């Protein structure tokens, strides 16, 4: 082809030779395995990883449930049932309190309304049911919720659940998620009035995690009740809104007095 016969510009080469060049060049660039193969392999590996991960997480959750002892705290008849504080009078309204020992909102609730709840429980004017949950252990990657709950339910054997419970909230960690040391929890037991031989058996219960499965069962029961946040306060089965309430109006809302 004579030079002066070609059109001006860089795209003068015939289309066919241009394509050949592109294919040649592309052939040397495409070094990866065939898309079908890599697609299939990645899909299969991805599915295996996801399924395996799910099974592992499920097994971990199951082993947490079967870890530790299967004792029930004194006064509780079955797994998943709440712990009733005090001795309610016949026909007293039921106050269900769902809380996690580590939850800052629960600490706030206890600071404001704890004394009112205690008064109603001790007077028997309300059936105060504690549903102690422990999901914050997952968020904070620890066992502080379960350990504090263990201490409290071990104290129930000496009728000191309430005192232990109140001590835990009175000594909330300065930083959310920091939890309590074993020595602190033992101190709460002592502060609750557990001493001497009782303290020794409290320690055995605490160290052996005697109530572990009960604590896990309560967490599961709470989740199944649709409790996805703490504190949740229910009066005769209906969730209460505490906005704008003070201890007196709260007591009145519960007991009518």
């Amino acid at each position, binding site marked *: 082809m004579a030079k002066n016969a070609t059109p001006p510009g860089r*795209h003068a080469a015939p289309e066919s030779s241009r394509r050949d060049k*592109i294919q040649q060049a592309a052939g040397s660039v495409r070094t990866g395995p065939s898309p079908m193969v890599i697609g299939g392999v990645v*899909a299969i590996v991805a599915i295996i*990883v996801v399924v395996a991960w799910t099974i592992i997480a499920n097994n971990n959750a199951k082993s947490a449930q079967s870890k530790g002892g299967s004792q029930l705290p004194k006064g509780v008849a079955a797994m998943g049932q709440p712990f009733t504080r005090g001795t309610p009078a016949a026909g007293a309204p039921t106050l269900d309190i769902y809380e996690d020992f580590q939850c800052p909102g629960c600490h706030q609730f206890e600071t404001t309304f704890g004394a009112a709840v205690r008064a109603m429980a001790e007077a028997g004017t309300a059936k105060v049911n504690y549903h102690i949950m422990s*999901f914050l252990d997952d968020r904070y990657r620890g066992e502080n919720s379960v350990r504090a709950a263990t201490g409290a339910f071990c104290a129930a054997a000496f009728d000191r659940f309430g005192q232990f419970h109140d001590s835990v909230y009175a000594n909330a960690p300065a930083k959310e998620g920091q939890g309590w040391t074993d020595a602190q929890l033992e101190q709460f037991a002592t502060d609750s009035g557990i001493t001497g031989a009782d303290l020794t058996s409290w320690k055995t219960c605490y160290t052996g995690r005697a109530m572990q499965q009960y604590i896990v069962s309560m967490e599961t029961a709470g*989740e199944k009740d649709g409790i996805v946040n703490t504190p*949740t306060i229910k009066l005769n089965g209906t969730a209460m809104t505490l906005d704008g309430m003070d201890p007196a109006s709260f007591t009145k809302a519960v007991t009518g007095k």
Partner: protein
Amino acid sequence: MTTDLAGRSATAPTEDAVTRLDWVGTLARLVLGIVLLVAGALKVGHPAASARAVQAYQLLPYDVARLIGYGLPMVEIIVGSLLVIGLLTRGAAVVASLLMAAFVIGIVSAWVRGLAIDCGCFGGGGTIAKADTSYPLEVARDAGLLLCGLYLLWRPRSALSLDRRWYGI
């Protein structure tokens, strides 16, 4: 747009030419991929919290929601990684779009049913105060990400991708 003498548009996609749309694809890939990757990574170490977040929607049976909560973060990580490196872009975009569509449906349904939950998209989740819900924002974000996914479904070609490097697509 220029046209060469063979009548081919110079901006038409070929193996070598990176077009403006290819960069749009790259942006869509990175936005969708990084969000998925981060969301998955934040949740993957907290299986119980993730399970609770799914259960909080009250859409699925308790145990089904639990298992989805365990597996979902890993799915997000894998799909997010594929999008970031640009491998199997169209396939990853299909899964990502399905996820985003499911998230949008879940959040809208929680909103309509009057639930007060955090979407749990980046960890956390569960019931929160009504005043703290941010459904419009969560829906808008996931709808935007869904658009990224649908775009890649329509046109998976993008710059800086393994698909392009290895297969020229």
